[in-house]
Protein backbone atom coordinates (compact mmCIF):
# COMPACT_ATOMS: atom_id res chain seq x y z
CA UNK A 1 0.00 0.00 0.00
CA UNK A 2 1.39 3.36 -1.03
CA UNK A 3 0.39 5.84 1.66
CA UNK A 4 0.56 8.86 -0.69
CA UNK A 5 -2.16 7.30 -2.87
CA UNK A 6 -4.70 7.11 -0.04
CA UNK A 7 -7.75 9.34 0.02
CA UNK A 8 -8.26 11.53 3.08
CA UNK A 9 -11.00 9.29 4.46
CA UNK A 10 -8.96 6.10 3.88
CA UNK A 11 -5.91 7.62 5.58
CA UNK A 12 -8.02 8.89 8.47
CA UNK A 13 -9.36 5.39 9.09
CA UNK A 14 -5.82 4.01 9.30
CA UNK A 15 -4.72 6.87 11.54
CA UNK A 16 -7.67 6.28 13.88
CA UNK A 17 -6.90 2.56 14.09
CA UNK A 18 -3.29 3.41 14.87
CA UNK A 19 -2.06 1.45 11.83
CA UNK A 20 -0.14 4.44 10.49
CA UNK A 21 1.09 7.70 12.00
CA UNK A 22 0.77 11.20 10.61
CA UNK A 23 4.57 11.32 10.43
CA UNK A 24 4.72 8.16 8.27
CA UNK A 25 1.96 9.49 6.03
CA UNK A 26 3.64 12.89 5.66
CA UNK A 27 7.03 11.28 4.98
CA UNK A 28 5.48 9.14 2.23
CA UNK A 29 3.96 12.18 0.54
CA UNK A 30 7.18 14.21 0.81
CA UNK A 31 9.05 11.25 -0.73
CA UNK A 32 6.59 11.26 -3.62
CA UNK A 33 7.09 15.01 -4.12
CA UNK A 34 10.86 14.49 -4.25
CA UNK A 35 10.40 11.66 -6.79
CA UNK A 36 7.99 13.24 -9.25
CA UNK A 37 7.74 16.99 -8.79
CA UNK A 38 10.76 17.67 -10.99
CA UNK A 39 8.50 16.39 -13.81
CA UNK A 40 5.11 17.69 -12.70
CA UNK A 41 6.24 20.99 -11.16
CA UNK A 42 3.09 21.33 -9.08
CA UNK A 43 4.75 23.11 -6.15
CA UNK A 44 6.31 26.55 -5.92
CA UNK A 45 7.36 26.03 -2.30
CA UNK A 46 7.63 22.80 -0.33
CA UNK A 47 7.99 23.04 3.45
CA UNK A 48 9.04 19.51 4.52
CA UNK A 49 10.45 20.50 7.91
CA UNK A 50 7.41 22.38 9.12
CA UNK A 51 5.16 19.67 7.61
CA UNK A 52 6.92 16.99 9.66
CA UNK A 53 6.71 19.20 12.73
CA UNK A 54 2.97 19.60 12.18
CA UNK A 55 2.67 15.82 11.64
CA UNK A 56 4.42 15.10 14.95
CA UNK A 57 2.09 17.57 16.64
CA UNK A 58 -0.91 15.81 15.02
CA UNK A 59 0.28 12.45 16.34
CA UNK A 60 0.61 13.97 19.83
CA UNK A 61 -2.89 15.47 19.60
CA UNK A 62 -4.30 12.09 18.57
CA UNK A 63 -2.48 10.37 21.42
CA UNK A 64 -4.09 12.91 23.75
CA UNK A 65 -7.52 11.82 22.52
CA UNK A 66 -8.25 14.39 19.83
CA UNK A 67 -10.05 13.46 16.63
CA UNK A 68 -10.86 15.43 13.47
CA UNK A 69 -11.31 14.28 9.85
CA UNK A 70 -8.19 16.26 8.86
CA UNK A 71 -5.98 15.48 11.87
CA UNK A 72 -2.60 14.48 10.44
CA UNK A 73 -3.69 14.77 6.78
CA UNK A 74 -1.08 16.35 4.43
CA UNK A 75 -2.54 19.07 2.19
CA UNK A 76 -1.30 21.42 -0.53
CA UNK A 77 -2.34 25.08 -0.73
CA UNK A 78 -2.60 27.24 -3.85
CA UNK A 79 -0.02 29.99 -3.57
CA UNK A 80 -2.63 32.75 -3.51
CA UNK A 81 -3.80 31.88 0.01
CA UNK A 82 -1.77 33.66 2.71
CA UNK A 83 0.33 31.42 4.94
CA UNK A 84 2.08 33.04 7.89
CA UNK A 85 5.87 32.93 7.56
CA UNK A 86 5.73 31.02 4.25
CA UNK A 87 6.15 32.90 0.93
CA UNK A 88 2.88 33.64 -0.87
CA UNK A 89 3.77 34.71 -4.39
CA UNK A 90 0.47 34.45 -6.33
CA UNK A 91 2.71 33.09 -9.10
CA UNK A 92 3.92 36.64 -9.66
CA UNK A 93 7.38 38.17 -9.71
CA UNK A 94 5.86 41.23 -8.02
CA UNK A 95 5.26 39.13 -4.86
CA UNK A 96 8.29 36.84 -5.21
CA UNK A 97 9.61 37.81 -1.77
CA UNK A 98 6.31 38.44 0.02
CA UNK A 99 5.98 36.60 3.34
CA UNK A 100 2.55 37.16 4.90
CA UNK A 101 2.45 38.18 8.57
CA UNK A 102 -0.83 36.27 9.02
CA UNK A 103 -2.73 33.14 7.99
CA UNK A 104 -5.86 33.19 5.86
CA UNK A 105 -8.94 32.13 7.80
CA UNK A 106 -9.06 28.85 5.86
CA UNK A 107 -5.48 28.06 6.91
CA UNK A 108 -6.35 28.75 10.55
CA UNK A 109 -9.31 26.42 10.28
CA UNK A 110 -7.31 23.63 8.60
CA UNK A 111 -4.58 23.96 11.22
CA UNK A 112 -7.11 23.92 14.07
CA UNK A 113 -8.32 20.61 12.65
CA UNK A 114 -4.74 19.34 12.69
CA UNK A 115 -4.09 19.27 8.95
CA UNK A 116 -0.45 19.21 7.80
CA UNK A 117 0.53 21.87 5.25
CA UNK A 118 3.03 20.51 2.70
CA UNK A 119 3.63 23.68 0.72
CA UNK A 120 2.30 26.10 -1.86
CA UNK A 121 1.22 25.15 -5.37
CA UNK A 122 1.74 26.79 -8.73
CA UNK A 123 -0.90 28.91 -10.46
CA UNK A 124 -1.44 31.33 -13.28
CA UNK A 125 -0.21 34.72 -12.09
CA UNK A 126 -2.85 36.15 -9.70
CA UNK A 127 -5.13 33.26 -10.79
CA UNK A 128 -5.53 34.80 -14.24
CA UNK A 129 -5.45 31.96 -16.72
CA UNK A 130 -6.69 28.51 -17.64
CA UNK A 131 -3.47 26.53 -18.06
CA UNK A 132 -0.98 27.53 -15.31
CA UNK A 133 1.31 28.67 -18.14
CA UNK A 134 0.91 32.27 -16.94
CA UNK A 135 2.86 31.48 -13.77
CA UNK A 136 5.69 33.97 -13.38
CA UNK A 137 8.00 31.06 -12.50
CA UNK A 138 7.36 27.93 -14.63
CA UNK A 139 4.46 25.97 -16.10
CA UNK A 140 3.00 22.92 -14.36
CA UNK A 141 2.63 19.67 -16.33
CA UNK A 142 -0.42 17.40 -16.48
CA UNK A 143 0.42 14.08 -14.76
CA UNK A 144 -1.61 12.20 -17.41
CA UNK A 145 0.57 13.59 -20.22
CA UNK A 146 3.50 15.77 -19.26
CA UNK A 147 3.41 17.64 -22.59
CA UNK A 148 -0.04 18.99 -21.70
CA UNK A 149 -1.34 21.66 -19.33
CA UNK A 150 -3.06 20.74 -16.06
CA UNK A 151 -5.64 23.49 -16.64
CA UNK A 152 -5.76 26.55 -14.46
CA UNK A 153 -5.53 28.69 -12.69
CA UNK A 154 -5.24 26.20 -9.77
CA UNK A 155 -3.24 23.79 -11.98
CA UNK A 156 -0.59 23.12 -9.32
CA UNK A 157 -3.13 21.92 -6.76
CA UNK A 158 -4.99 19.74 -9.31
CA UNK A 159 -1.77 18.19 -10.63
CA UNK A 160 -0.49 17.57 -7.07
CA UNK A 161 -3.66 15.59 -6.26
CA UNK A 162 -3.53 13.61 -9.53
CA UNK A 163 0.16 12.79 -9.06
CA UNK A 164 -0.28 11.67 -5.44
CA UNK A 165 1.79 14.60 -4.14
CA UNK A 166 -0.81 15.46 -1.47
CA UNK A 167 -4.03 13.98 -0.10
CA UNK A 168 -6.17 17.09 -0.53
CA UNK A 169 -5.65 20.65 -1.71
CA UNK A 170 -7.10 24.12 -1.76
CA UNK A 171 -7.49 26.24 -4.86
CA UNK A 172 -9.50 29.31 -5.71
CA UNK A 173 -12.27 29.52 -8.30
CA UNK A 174 -13.06 32.89 -9.90
CA UNK A 175 -14.29 31.62 -13.29
CA UNK A 176 -13.64 27.90 -13.15
CA UNK A 177 -10.10 27.85 -11.75
CA UNK A 178 -10.81 24.79 -9.59
CA UNK A 179 -13.40 22.91 -11.67
CA UNK A 180 -11.56 23.16 -15.02
CA UNK A 181 -8.16 21.88 -13.73
CA UNK A 182 -10.00 19.18 -11.75
CA UNK A 183 -11.58 18.04 -15.03
CA UNK A 184 -8.30 18.15 -16.96
CA UNK A 185 -6.41 16.26 -14.23
CA UNK A 186 -9.11 13.68 -13.46
CA UNK A 187 -9.75 14.74 -9.86
CA UNK A 188 -12.66 16.29 -7.95
CA UNK A 189 -12.97 20.07 -7.48
CA UNK A 190 -15.82 21.79 -5.65
CA UNK A 191 -16.62 25.48 -6.01
CA UNK A 192 -18.71 26.54 -3.02
CA UNK A 193 -21.43 29.16 -3.13
CA UNK A 194 -20.11 32.75 -3.03
CA UNK A 195 -19.95 33.71 0.67
CA UNK A 196 -19.82 30.10 1.95
CA UNK A 197 -16.06 30.18 2.63
CA UNK A 198 -14.18 33.16 4.06
CA UNK A 199 -11.98 35.02 1.57
CA UNK A 200 -9.93 36.63 4.36
CA UNK A 201 -6.31 36.02 3.38
CA UNK A 202 -7.14 35.05 -0.21
CA UNK A 203 -5.23 37.57 -2.34
CA UNK A 204 -7.95 39.40 -4.28
CA UNK A 205 -8.38 38.99 -8.04
CA UNK A 206 -12.08 39.70 -8.74
CA UNK A 207 -13.77 40.19 -5.41
CA UNK A 208 -17.40 39.59 -6.45
CA UNK A 209 -16.43 36.24 -8.05
CA UNK A 210 -13.51 34.79 -6.03
CA UNK A 211 -14.13 31.79 -3.80
CA UNK A 212 -11.70 29.41 -2.08
CA UNK A 213 -12.43 25.87 -3.17
CA UNK A 214 -11.25 22.34 -2.26
CA UNK A 215 -9.79 19.57 -4.44
CA UNK A 216 -9.96 15.89 -3.52
CA UNK A 217 -9.31 12.46 -4.97
CA UNK A 218 -13.01 11.73 -4.52
CA UNK A 219 -16.29 13.37 -3.55
CA UNK A 220 -16.08 12.33 0.10
CA UNK A 221 -12.70 14.08 0.46
CA UNK A 222 -14.10 17.27 -1.04
CA UNK A 223 -17.00 17.15 1.41
CA UNK A 224 -14.55 16.74 4.30
CA UNK A 225 -12.45 19.68 3.11
CA UNK A 226 -15.54 21.85 2.59
CA UNK A 227 -16.80 21.00 6.08
CA UNK A 228 -13.53 22.26 7.54
CA UNK A 229 -13.56 25.62 5.75
CA UNK A 230 -17.27 26.49 5.33
CA UNK A 231 -17.79 28.94 8.16
CA UNK A 232 -18.98 32.46 8.84
CA UNK A 233 -16.08 34.87 9.29
CA UNK A 234 -16.62 38.43 10.48
CA UNK A 235 -13.26 39.35 8.90
CA UNK A 236 -14.78 38.86 5.43
CA UNK A 237 -17.75 41.18 5.00
CA UNK A 238 -19.07 38.99 2.15
CA UNK A 239 -18.96 35.85 4.27
CA UNK A 240 -22.54 34.70 4.86
CA UNK A 241 -23.81 33.99 8.36
CA UNK A 242 -25.56 30.71 7.51
CA UNK A 243 -24.55 27.64 9.55
CA UNK A 244 -22.88 24.95 7.43
CA UNK A 245 -24.88 21.71 7.29
CA UNK A 246 -23.27 18.33 7.94
CA UNK A 247 -22.09 17.56 4.41
CA UNK A 248 -21.31 13.92 5.25
CA UNK A 249 -25.06 13.34 5.53
CA UNK A 250 -25.43 14.31 1.87
CA UNK A 251 -23.18 11.43 0.84
CA UNK A 252 -25.91 8.85 0.18
CA UNK A 253 -25.86 6.75 -2.98
CA UNK A 254 -29.52 7.34 -3.71
CA UNK A 255 -30.76 9.96 -6.15
CA UNK A 256 -34.11 8.44 -7.03
CA UNK A 257 -36.59 11.18 -7.79
CA UNK A 258 -34.02 13.98 -7.85
CA UNK A 259 -34.66 16.44 -10.67
CA UNK A 260 -31.62 16.83 -12.91
CA UNK A 261 -31.57 19.43 -15.71
CA UNK A 262 -29.31 19.30 -18.76
CA UNK A 263 -28.70 22.83 -20.08
CA UNK A 264 -28.69 22.47 -23.84
CA UNK A 265 -26.50 25.55 -24.38
CA UNK A 266 -23.60 23.80 -22.60
CA UNK A 267 -22.96 21.43 -25.51
CA UNK A 268 -21.14 24.14 -27.41
CA UNK A 269 -19.76 24.29 -30.90
CA UNK A 270 -16.15 23.13 -30.92
CA UNK A 271 -16.66 20.63 -28.12
CA UNK A 272 -14.53 17.55 -28.66
CA UNK A 273 -16.68 14.55 -29.62
CA UNK A 274 -15.01 12.32 -27.02
CA UNK A 275 -15.84 14.83 -24.28
CA UNK A 276 -19.47 15.06 -25.35
CA UNK A 277 -19.76 11.25 -25.57
CA UNK A 278 -18.34 10.75 -22.05
CA UNK A 279 -20.62 13.42 -20.56
CA UNK A 280 -23.75 12.12 -22.36
CA UNK A 281 -22.96 8.61 -21.09
CA UNK A 282 -22.57 9.97 -17.55
CA UNK A 283 -25.94 11.71 -17.77
CA UNK A 284 -27.54 8.44 -18.90
CA UNK A 285 -25.96 6.75 -15.91
CA UNK A 286 -27.48 9.37 -13.62
CA UNK A 287 -30.89 8.69 -15.21
CA UNK A 288 -30.35 4.94 -14.72
CA UNK A 289 -29.76 5.61 -11.03
CA UNK A 290 -33.32 6.91 -10.81
CA UNK A 291 -32.98 10.67 -11.26
CA UNK A 292 -35.54 12.48 -13.41
CA UNK A 293 -33.43 13.94 -16.20
CA UNK A 294 -34.78 16.58 -18.54
CA UNK A 295 -33.42 19.24 -20.87
CA UNK A 296 -33.42 22.88 -19.76
CA UNK A 297 -32.48 26.15 -21.40
CA UNK A 298 -30.21 28.83 -19.92
CA UNK A 299 -30.75 31.28 -22.79
CA UNK A 300 -28.10 33.84 -21.80
CA UNK A 301 -25.23 31.33 -21.59
CA UNK A 302 -23.49 32.69 -24.69
CA UNK A 303 -23.13 36.08 -23.00
CA UNK A 304 -21.30 34.72 -19.95
CA UNK A 305 -17.86 34.86 -21.52
CA UNK A 306 -17.96 38.53 -22.60
CA UNK A 307 -19.65 39.51 -19.31
CA UNK A 308 -16.99 37.71 -17.31
CA UNK A 309 -14.12 39.17 -19.32
CA UNK A 310 -15.38 42.68 -18.63
CA UNK A 311 -16.33 42.30 -14.96
CA UNK A 312 -13.35 40.20 -13.78
CA UNK A 313 -10.69 42.44 -15.37
CA UNK A 314 -12.49 45.56 -14.13
CA UNK A 315 -12.40 44.28 -10.55
CA UNK A 316 -8.83 43.07 -11.06
CA UNK A 317 -7.67 46.46 -12.32
CA UNK A 318 -8.91 48.00 -9.06
CA UNK A 319 -7.62 45.22 -6.80
CA UNK A 320 -4.16 45.19 -8.36
CA UNK A 321 -3.72 48.94 -7.95
CA UNK A 322 -2.30 48.06 -4.52
CA UNK A 323 0.96 46.78 -6.04
CA UNK A 324 2.89 50.03 -5.92
CA UNK A 325 6.24 48.88 -4.54
CA UNK A 326 5.74 50.74 -1.25
CA UNK A 327 4.19 48.43 1.36
CA UNK A 328 5.38 45.04 0.06
CA UNK A 329 6.50 43.28 -3.06
CA UNK A 330 8.88 44.19 -5.83
CA UNK A 331 10.04 47.79 -6.02
CA UNK A 332 11.97 48.97 -9.06
CA UNK A 333 15.37 50.25 -7.89
CA UNK A 334 16.22 52.94 -10.44
CA UNK A 335 13.51 55.52 -10.85
CA UNK A 336 13.22 59.25 -11.50
CA UNK A 337 10.26 60.15 -9.29
CA UNK A 338 7.25 58.69 -7.51
CA UNK A 339 5.19 58.25 -10.71
CA UNK A 340 8.07 56.63 -12.51
CA UNK A 341 8.47 54.30 -9.51
CA UNK A 342 4.87 53.08 -9.87
CA UNK A 343 5.16 52.63 -13.64
CA UNK A 344 8.51 50.81 -13.59
CA UNK A 345 7.59 48.61 -10.60
CA UNK A 346 4.33 47.46 -12.20
CA UNK A 347 5.84 47.14 -15.67
CA UNK A 348 8.66 44.88 -14.41
CA UNK A 349 6.64 43.03 -11.77
CA UNK A 350 3.54 41.92 -13.72
CA UNK A 351 3.49 39.34 -16.51
CA UNK A 352 1.72 39.76 -19.88
CA UNK A 353 -1.71 38.29 -19.01
CA UNK A 354 -1.99 40.36 -15.83
CA UNK A 355 -1.08 43.52 -17.74
CA UNK A 356 -3.58 42.62 -20.46
CA UNK A 357 -6.38 42.24 -17.93
CA UNK A 358 -5.44 45.38 -16.02
CA UNK A 359 -5.54 47.26 -19.34
CA UNK A 360 -8.86 45.71 -20.32
CA UNK A 361 -10.42 46.41 -16.93
CA UNK A 362 -9.09 49.96 -16.81
CA UNK A 363 -10.59 50.59 -20.25
CA UNK A 364 -13.97 49.11 -19.28
CA UNK A 365 -14.11 51.38 -16.22
CA UNK A 366 -12.75 54.52 -17.88
CA UNK A 367 -14.73 57.68 -18.54
CA UNK A 368 -16.89 57.33 -21.64
CA UNK A 369 -16.83 53.54 -21.70
CA UNK A 370 -18.18 52.64 -18.25
CA UNK A 371 -21.83 52.47 -19.36
CA UNK A 372 -21.15 50.64 -22.61
CA UNK A 373 -18.94 47.96 -21.09
CA UNK A 374 -18.91 47.62 -17.30
CA UNK A 375 -22.49 48.65 -16.54
CA UNK A 376 -23.80 46.72 -19.53
CA UNK A 377 -21.94 43.61 -18.33
CA UNK A 378 -23.40 44.00 -14.83
CA UNK A 379 -26.90 44.17 -16.29
CA UNK A 380 -26.39 41.07 -18.41
CA UNK A 381 -25.00 39.40 -15.27
CA UNK A 382 -28.50 39.89 -13.80
CA UNK A 383 -30.02 38.08 -16.80
CA UNK A 384 -27.56 35.18 -16.38
CA UNK A 385 -28.46 34.94 -12.69
CA UNK A 386 -32.19 34.95 -13.56
CA UNK A 387 -31.67 32.04 -15.98
CA UNK A 388 -30.32 29.96 -13.09
CA UNK A 389 -33.06 31.14 -10.69
CA UNK A 390 -35.63 29.96 -13.22
CA UNK A 391 -33.89 26.60 -13.81
CA UNK A 392 -33.55 25.86 -10.09
CA UNK A 393 -37.29 26.29 -9.62
CA UNK A 394 -37.66 23.10 -11.69
CA UNK A 395 -34.44 21.22 -10.99
CA UNK A 396 -32.35 20.23 -7.95
CA UNK A 397 -29.11 20.27 -9.95
CA UNK A 398 -27.94 20.88 -13.51
CA UNK A 399 -25.35 18.66 -15.23
CA UNK A 400 -23.04 19.53 -18.12
CA UNK A 401 -19.44 19.16 -19.24
CA UNK A 402 -16.85 21.09 -17.19
CA UNK A 403 -14.57 21.86 -20.13
CA UNK A 404 -15.27 21.61 -23.88
CA UNK A 405 -11.91 19.89 -24.41
CA UNK A 406 -9.49 17.58 -22.65
CA UNK A 407 -6.09 18.93 -21.57
CA UNK A 408 -4.39 20.81 -24.40
CA UNK A 409 -0.71 21.01 -25.28
CA UNK A 410 1.58 23.37 -23.41
CA UNK A 411 2.06 26.40 -25.66
CA UNK A 412 -0.98 25.67 -27.85
CA UNK A 413 -3.08 28.66 -26.74
CA UNK A 414 -0.60 31.10 -25.18
CA UNK A 415 -0.57 33.55 -28.09
CA UNK A 416 -4.34 33.72 -28.48
CA UNK A 417 -6.00 35.13 -25.36
CA UNK A 418 -9.54 34.70 -26.69
CA UNK A 419 -8.93 31.00 -27.45
CA UNK A 420 -7.55 30.58 -23.92
CA UNK A 421 -10.58 32.38 -22.45
CA UNK A 422 -12.85 29.87 -24.22
CA UNK A 423 -11.45 27.17 -21.90
CA UNK A 424 -13.67 28.64 -19.18
CA UNK A 425 -16.82 29.01 -21.24
CA UNK A 426 -18.73 26.30 -19.31
CA UNK A 427 -17.64 27.24 -15.80
CA UNK A 428 -17.73 31.01 -15.41
CA UNK A 429 -21.53 31.44 -15.41
CA UNK A 430 -21.60 29.87 -11.95
CA UNK A 431 -19.28 32.54 -10.55
CA UNK A 432 -21.35 35.29 -12.18
CA UNK A 433 -24.47 33.82 -10.52
CA UNK A 434 -22.66 33.08 -7.22
CA UNK A 435 -23.89 29.47 -7.16
CA UNK A 436 -22.02 26.23 -6.41
CA UNK A 437 -20.73 23.40 -8.59
CA UNK A 438 -18.45 20.40 -8.68
CA UNK A 439 -16.38 18.68 -11.34
CA UNK A 440 -15.98 14.92 -11.05
CA UNK A 441 -14.22 12.41 -13.33
CA UNK A 442 -16.65 10.84 -15.84
CA UNK A 443 -14.44 9.11 -18.38
CA UNK A 444 -11.55 9.51 -20.77
CA UNK A 445 -11.32 10.86 -24.28
CA UNK A 446 -8.70 11.29 -26.97
CA UNK A 447 -7.48 14.74 -27.86
CA UNK A 448 -8.62 15.72 -31.32
CA UNK A 449 -6.96 19.12 -31.28
CA UNK A 450 -3.61 17.83 -32.54
CA UNK A 451 -2.53 15.72 -35.48
CA UNK A 452 -3.56 12.09 -35.91
CA UNK A 453 -0.25 10.69 -34.72
CA UNK A 454 -0.29 12.69 -31.47
CA UNK A 455 -3.93 11.84 -30.86
CA UNK A 456 -2.99 8.19 -30.81
CA UNK A 457 -0.15 8.74 -28.36
CA UNK A 458 -2.46 10.37 -25.79
CA UNK A 459 -5.71 8.55 -26.40
CA UNK A 460 -6.77 8.76 -22.78
CA UNK A 461 -7.16 12.10 -21.10
CA UNK A 462 -9.64 12.71 -18.27
CA UNK A 463 -13.07 14.26 -18.84
CA UNK A 464 -15.01 16.10 -16.13
CA UNK A 465 -18.73 16.16 -15.42
CA UNK A 466 -19.95 19.43 -13.93
CA UNK A 467 -22.83 19.31 -11.46
CA UNK A 468 -24.27 22.72 -10.61
CA UNK A 469 -26.46 23.66 -7.68
CA UNK A 470 -28.27 26.77 -6.51
CA UNK A 471 -26.79 29.06 -3.84
CA UNK A 472 -26.15 27.00 -0.67
CA UNK A 473 -27.27 23.79 -2.39
CA UNK A 474 -23.89 22.06 -1.91
CA UNK A 475 -25.68 19.06 -0.38
CA UNK A 476 -27.68 18.38 -3.57
CA UNK A 477 -24.53 18.70 -5.67
CA UNK A 478 -22.56 16.37 -3.37
CA UNK A 479 -25.36 13.82 -3.32
CA UNK A 480 -25.56 13.49 -7.10
CA UNK A 481 -21.76 13.52 -7.41
CA UNK A 482 -21.40 10.84 -4.73
CA UNK A 483 -24.10 8.58 -6.18
CA UNK A 484 -22.51 8.75 -9.64
CA UNK A 485 -19.03 8.18 -8.23
CA UNK A 486 -20.14 5.13 -6.24
CA UNK A 487 -21.62 3.65 -9.43
CA UNK A 488 -18.43 4.17 -11.47
CA UNK A 489 -14.69 3.55 -11.24
CA UNK A 490 -13.29 6.61 -13.05
CA UNK A 491 -12.01 8.26 -9.85
CA UNK A 492 -9.85 5.23 -9.05
CA UNK A 493 -7.69 5.54 -12.18
CA UNK A 494 -4.29 7.07 -11.65
CA UNK A 495 -1.72 8.41 -14.10
CA UNK A 496 1.57 6.53 -14.44
CA UNK A 497 4.59 8.69 -13.70
Amino acid sequence: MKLNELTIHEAQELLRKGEISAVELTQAVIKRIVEVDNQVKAYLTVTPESALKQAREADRRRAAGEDHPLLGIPLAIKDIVCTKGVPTTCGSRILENFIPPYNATVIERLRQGGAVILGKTNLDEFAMGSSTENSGFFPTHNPWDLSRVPGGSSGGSAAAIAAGECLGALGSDTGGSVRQPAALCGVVGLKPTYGRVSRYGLVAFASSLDQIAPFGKDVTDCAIMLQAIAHYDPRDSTSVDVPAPNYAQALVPDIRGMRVGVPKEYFVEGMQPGVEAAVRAAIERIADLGAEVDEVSLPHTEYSLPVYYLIAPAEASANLARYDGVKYGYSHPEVEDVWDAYRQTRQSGFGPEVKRRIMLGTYALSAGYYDAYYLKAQKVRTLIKRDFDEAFRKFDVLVAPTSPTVAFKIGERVDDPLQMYLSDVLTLSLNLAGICGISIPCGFAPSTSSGHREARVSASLPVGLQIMGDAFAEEAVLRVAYAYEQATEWHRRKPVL
Partner: protein
Amino acid sequence: MDKQRKETKLSHDEVEHIAELAKLSLTDEEREKFGEQLSAILKYAEVLQRLDTEAIPPTATVLPLRNVMVADEVRPSFSREDVLANAPRAENGCFKVRAILE
Protein backbone atom coordinates in the same frame (compact mmCIF):
# COMPACT_ATOMS: atom_id res chain seq x y z
CA MET B 1 -22.72 53.07 -27.19
CA ASP B 2 -22.32 54.53 -30.66
CA LYS B 3 -18.91 55.71 -29.67
CA GLN B 4 -17.65 52.21 -28.82
CA ARG B 5 -19.20 50.65 -31.90
CA LYS B 6 -17.22 52.86 -34.20
CA GLU B 7 -14.00 52.56 -32.26
CA THR B 8 -13.47 48.91 -31.39
CA LYS B 9 -9.98 49.24 -32.86
CA LEU B 10 -8.01 50.99 -30.14
CA SER B 11 -5.72 53.74 -31.34
CA HIS B 12 -2.11 54.07 -30.26
CA ASP B 13 -3.06 57.11 -28.15
CA GLU B 14 -5.88 55.23 -26.46
CA VAL B 15 -3.62 52.33 -25.51
CA GLU B 16 -1.10 54.83 -24.15
CA HIS B 17 -3.84 56.62 -22.18
CA ILE B 18 -5.08 53.37 -20.58
CA ALA B 19 -1.51 52.33 -19.76
CA GLU B 20 -0.99 55.66 -18.01
CA LEU B 21 -4.24 55.27 -16.03
CA ALA B 22 -3.06 51.78 -15.00
CA LYS B 23 0.49 53.04 -14.30
CA LEU B 24 2.23 50.65 -16.68
CA SER B 25 5.16 51.81 -18.80
CA LEU B 26 4.56 49.48 -21.74
CA THR B 27 7.19 48.77 -24.36
CA ASP B 28 6.41 49.65 -28.00
CA GLU B 29 5.96 45.97 -28.74
CA GLU B 30 3.48 45.54 -25.87
CA ARG B 31 1.54 48.63 -26.94
CA GLU B 32 1.18 47.18 -30.42
CA LYS B 33 0.24 43.69 -29.22
CA PHE B 34 -2.16 44.78 -26.46
CA GLY B 35 -3.81 47.23 -28.87
CA GLU B 36 -4.63 44.38 -31.24
CA GLN B 37 -5.60 41.87 -28.56
CA LEU B 38 -7.77 44.29 -26.56
CA SER B 39 -9.50 45.37 -29.78
CA ALA B 40 -10.30 41.72 -30.57
CA ILE B 41 -11.65 41.10 -27.06
CA LEU B 42 -13.75 44.29 -27.10
CA LYS B 43 -15.09 43.39 -30.55
CA TYR B 44 -16.09 40.01 -29.14
CA ALA B 45 -17.84 41.80 -26.23
CA GLU B 46 -20.01 43.77 -28.68
CA VAL B 47 -22.36 40.80 -28.70
CA LEU B 48 -23.76 42.21 -25.43
CA GLN B 49 -25.20 45.18 -27.31
CA ARG B 50 -27.74 42.81 -28.89
CA LEU B 51 -29.55 42.59 -25.57
CA ASP B 52 -32.03 45.26 -24.46
CA THR B 53 -31.10 45.87 -20.84
CA GLU B 54 -32.89 49.19 -20.40
CA ALA B 55 -35.11 47.87 -17.58
CA ILE B 56 -32.59 45.43 -16.07
CA PRO B 57 -30.86 46.41 -12.81
CA PRO B 58 -27.10 45.77 -12.65
CA THR B 59 -25.68 43.03 -10.39
CA ALA B 60 -22.61 44.15 -8.44
CA THR B 61 -22.85 41.35 -5.89
CA VAL B 62 -24.94 38.20 -5.84
CA LEU B 63 -25.51 38.43 -2.11
CA PRO B 64 -28.50 40.17 -0.58
CA LEU B 65 -26.05 42.13 1.58
CA ARG B 66 -25.91 45.86 2.05
CA ASN B 67 -23.50 47.66 4.35
CA VAL B 68 -21.98 45.26 6.85
CA MET B 69 -21.00 46.97 10.09
CA VAL B 70 -18.56 45.78 12.73
CA ALA B 71 -18.51 46.89 16.32
CA ASP B 72 -16.25 49.90 16.82
CA GLU B 73 -13.93 48.39 19.39
CA VAL B 74 -10.21 48.10 19.98
CA ARG B 75 -8.80 44.77 18.83
CA PRO B 76 -5.26 43.44 18.59
CA SER B 77 -3.51 44.28 15.35
CA PHE B 78 -0.25 43.37 13.66
CA SER B 79 2.91 44.74 15.22
CA ARG B 80 4.67 47.55 13.40
CA GLU B 81 7.67 45.27 12.96
CA ASP B 82 5.60 42.52 11.29
CA VAL B 83 3.96 44.95 8.90
CA LEU B 84 7.21 46.64 7.91
CA ALA B 85 9.01 43.31 7.43
CA ASN B 86 7.84 43.19 3.79
CA ALA B 87 8.47 46.86 3.02
CA PRO B 88 11.00 47.50 0.24
CA ARG B 89 12.13 50.63 2.13
CA ALA B 90 11.42 51.58 5.74
CA GLU B 91 12.83 54.20 8.07
CA ASN B 92 12.13 55.07 11.71
CA GLY B 93 9.26 52.59 11.87
CA CYS B 94 7.55 54.00 8.78
CA PHE B 95 7.21 53.06 5.11
CA LYS B 96 9.64 55.15 3.12
CA VAL B 97 8.18 56.64 -0.05
CA ARG B 98 9.72 58.77 -2.75
CA ALA B 99 9.23 62.53 -2.68
CA ILE B 100 5.78 63.53 -3.88
CA LEU B 101 6.41 67.30 -3.83
CA GLU B 102 9.49 69.04 -5.19
